[in-house]
Every structure is written in C-alpha cells, then in structure tokens.
C-alpha cells in the first residue's frame, strides 16, 4: 500500500515536471529554491503531508551548487514520508522559509542556519539556537576545522 502511494505521488510530481525518484524506500523530489514555498503549500494542502519532520542541509565540498537543503515531510493519513531537496550555491544560500506553513520549521531552520549558514527567507528569528552569539562560522560545513574552539570564558593560565 505504501509503495502504491509513493508511486502515485511520484507520477504526480513527475507530471508537474519535478524530478522524483524512490531511493531506499523514500520518495525524493528535487525542487528549485524559488518554487519551494509553493511546492510545500501544495504538498500540504493537496497531498496531505501535514507534518514537517526535519530541515537540514548537506555540504558537498567541490560541487557547484555546494549545498543541498533537505526537508522531510510526513503524512499522518497515508503514513508515508517524502524527502524534498533543493540545491543552493555557496554565494547565495537562500531558500524560502516554511514557518508560515509549518510551525515546527522555526526551530529547525534556526538550527540549520547555525550549522550550515543557510538563510531562510521569511524567518525573522534566525538567532543562534545551539550555538551562541559571537560564534564565527558554521561548524557542520566541511571546511570548518572540527576542533576549532571559540571559548566564551577566557582560559585560566596554567
């Protein structure tokens, strides 16, 4: 049943001209950044994906565009997930915010902004949530040295 639902969705997205494939049992749709908000609105209203599970990103060093922003949606009616990916460049890592559609997006977009430096157009509150004010850089980018510390308290002199 799940497979049938996913196949139906895949055909629907493909009919809209969006590349969609089933990878490891999950439907993956590739959407361009400007079309993301409209696509998510349609996903919510027409396909019944009423829950936003996760907002994250992937850093592909050396690839252009460098980042993939990834959303996971879940349908509590059909019990299926869909993964939506948007490629953005390093120079302009901006995607639309989904906070107007899904309240859960607010915190996850803040975290994604912390860790990858992705800007979410429409989310006015992108303060650090896991990091702190004054932290320079985005630690989950591959070019951030993983042991570069930015202490808030001056270290004691031994």
């Amino acid at each position: 049943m799940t497979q049938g639902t996913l196949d139906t969705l895949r055909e629907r997205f493909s009919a809209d001209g969006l590349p969609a494939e089933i990878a490891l049992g999950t439907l993956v749709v590739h959407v361009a950044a400007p079309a993301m908000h409209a696509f998510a609105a349609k996903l919510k209203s027409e396909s019944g994906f009423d829950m936003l599970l996760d907002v994250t990103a992937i850093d592909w060093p050396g690839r252009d565009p460098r980042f993939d922003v990834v959303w996971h949606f879940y349908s509590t009616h059909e019990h299926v997930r869909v993964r939506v990916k948007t490629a953005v460049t390093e120079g302009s890592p901006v995607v639309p915010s989904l906070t107007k559609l899904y309240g859960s997006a607010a915190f996850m977009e803040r975290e994604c902004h912390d860790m990858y430096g992705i800007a979410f157009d429409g989310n006015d509150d992108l303060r650090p949530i896991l990091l702190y004010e004054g932290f320079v850089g985005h630690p989950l980018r591959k070019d951030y040295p993983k042991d570069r510390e930015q202490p808030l308290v001056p270290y004691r002199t031994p």
Partner: protein
Amino acid sequence: MMARPATIPIARADARSGAFEYVTTKKDELIGWARKFSLFPYPFVTACCAMEFMAVSSSPYDTDRFGAALPRFSPRQADLLMVVGTVTHKQAPILRKVYEQMCEPKWVMAFGVCATSGGFYQNYAAVQGIDRVIPVDVYIPGCPPRPEMVIDGIMQLQQKIATASHPILTERF
C-alpha cells in the same frame, strides 16, 4: 594514585618547631578533620554521568558514609562542586558563575572523562577539560566512572583536605 600515609601527619614537613607552630598544626588538623567529613556537594550535572552519580550517592554505595551525602542545590551552601558530565563552551560561563558563587573553602571534583579532558568530544563544542575554566582538586576518569572510583576520589579529596593548611582568617576572610 597518591600514596596514603598510614596516619594523618600532625605537622607539615616544612613546619618549624615551636609552640605556636604546634598549636597551628593542631588547629589545621582539627579543622581538616571536621571539614573532610562535612562535604556538601553541589552536583553540576549536565550529561549521562548523572546516572552514575545517582548510583554512587544512593545505596548500596552511599556517599553518606563519607559525609558527602547531602546535595545542596544552591552553590552558596555547598563546598564541593561536582562537575558531572560534558561541559560545552555555551555552558562554561554558567559553570564559572556557579564556582564563583560558592563560599570558601571550596573544592572541585571533575566527575568522568568529559569533565576531566573533554572525553571523546574532541570538537568545537566541548570544553577540553573543566580545568581550563575553574581549578580542579580531584579528577575521576572513566566513561562513566565506577562507583568505587568515585568513592576513591572522595577519599583522596578527604585526604587532601585533612592534610591541607586551614587558615581561619585570610586577607579575603
């Protein structure tokens, strides 16, 4: 591991002989004896070592046998700061403030390998040992430490308190 003398030394090795020094060392011995059995811990608990802290503080291991049973949840009433778990850079100012709120005399125990050295969190987020932020008296390694190791740490701290000098009046009171 520190070798323990069989008895608590009455005088420090560098103490001069004389009646005043004799009284002073007797005073240090008395105060050290009193203080080492009335450790009031403040558990600064941030991570999974908390489970081990609960195990060691309740029966059958029972830190009450060492006079270190009654956790005070205000740093102003505590004299032993037990840092139990990973301290991140975001948490470090809080740890520093808690330490500064404690009254003298005060001691610090780094409980577990994360508090001691950062443990396996060799990354941008974790403080690589709380002794970079506050002074530490006794380190307990282990992920998590066995209750026996914690008890050994408490006993070594008691030894340290018992053999230390205890000025009643200092320039800071």
